[in-house]
């Protein structure tokens, strides 16, 4: 089962991510899971010396969560992907593709979420 996982709130996200960076962890990826009630769990995976540590952030539909790409630049791609495919409103990503990272213009929006959510299309 998933080990070493801690639940956090969006208010704690920046602090815990900065702590991970200061403690010598690297950012591996983030995983978004859509839940039956329309909310999401976003897991942030960090690694140090082949040991994983995870944070789980529960996000309600429409809730804004801050980007961690200002701390870990490499998070920009996965945050854009989560925003585009799930409709999770991640704000202030260092390079924001505005919903055009993976999906073409004619594709249905937020295909991985339960229903269609449009945050923005630029």
């Amino acid at each position, binding site marked *: *089962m*998933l080990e070493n996982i801690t639940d956090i709130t969006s208010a704690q996200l920046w602090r815990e991510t900065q702590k991970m*960076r200061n403690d010598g962890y*690297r*950012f*591996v*990826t983030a*995983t*978004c*899971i859509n839940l039956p009630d329309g909310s999401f769990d976003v*897991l942030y*995976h960090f690694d140090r010396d*082949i040991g*994983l540590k*995870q944070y789980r952030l529960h996000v309600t539909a429409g809730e804004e969560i801050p980007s961690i790409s200002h701390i*870990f*630049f*490499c998070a*920009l*791609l*996965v945050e854009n992907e989560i925003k585009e495919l799930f409709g999770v409103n991640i704000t202030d990503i260092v*390079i924001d593709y505005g919903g*055009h*990272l*993976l*999906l*073409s213009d004619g594709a249905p929006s937020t*295909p*991985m979420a339960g229903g269609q959510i449009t945050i923005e299309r630029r």
Partner: protein
Amino acid sequence: MTKTVIPFGPQHPVLPEPLHLKLVLQDEKVLEAVPAIGYVHRGLEKLTETKDITQNIFVVERICGICSFMHALAYCQGIETLMGVQVPDRARYLRVVWGELHRTHSHLLWLGLLADSFGFESLFMQAWRCREQVIDLMEQTAGSRIIISTNTVGGTRRDIGPEMLKHIVEVVGNVEKELKAISKVFLNDYTVQHRLRDVGTLTKEDAYQLGAVGPVARASGINQDMRTLGYAAYNELDFAPVVETAGDSYARTVVRLRELSQAIDLLRQVEAKIPAGEISVPVKGNPEGEIVSRVEQPRGEVLYYLKADGTKFLSRVRVRTPTFANIPALLHMLPGHLLSDVPVLILSIDPCISCTER
């Protein structure tokens, strides 16, 4: 000075798969690069929601046409951990055989593409001629050249007999001899060195913070290889991560060349140590819970997150591939280099866009 924006890709003679980079140039020097992807996005993570746990093996294998076996391996290992399945020892060794054959063919493919990127066509063809022998082995052992479908939950679907194992060792021995001749050119040729040395230098600190994985990270001095987790039979084999420190494209080439020799050595070890026994165990029931499974693909760490709810369908399959992790490092490397270095730089991370976009 005026700046120019040049589109590199999505179709380019050097790129094996579509990748679009908007290069901001001043004269011939790259100031900034912004990637645009999505040309081969197939929605495979969404597809896995509609297939059962056995069908998903065949879906994840098709995420990539180069490191196909490792995708299935990471997936099967995740399901096996969730269900508490003990894979037979022989199956664990067989997984190493096919895994290292995949690593060998992938690195030889990359060597050829790298040679092609700086116009050395005969070296490209020599590398791929070498690679054909490895692909033939996969066809002889599994019936297919790349997407070999030998993994199953609980072990492997095919066995490799002692005569075939001996044949594999003979063939890769031959590949090793041919590789020695090709390596001399990659490592010592004046033109090749001129195109690779000090191109795309990534410091250890930057590689770590940017989340680089695989040979890109190891070429910058980061001692990180998921095989040290001990999955399959790696905990019973003698190997250590291949690390270089220069961090440039030349170091990334050296790491992959050394890993080729290491893969051949691992195959010899497996032939000597593989135990007799079953190749799979029956698996009953359905998985429940969530797990992260990681495997070292030729390009680096692949992460599979699996969430199961006790039915034969998984609630979520998340795949983070190594090229997805290495693209930020590529964006960091490009500024300051000439436009003519861009193809070599991009190739030096061994990009697999099918993996990146799924």
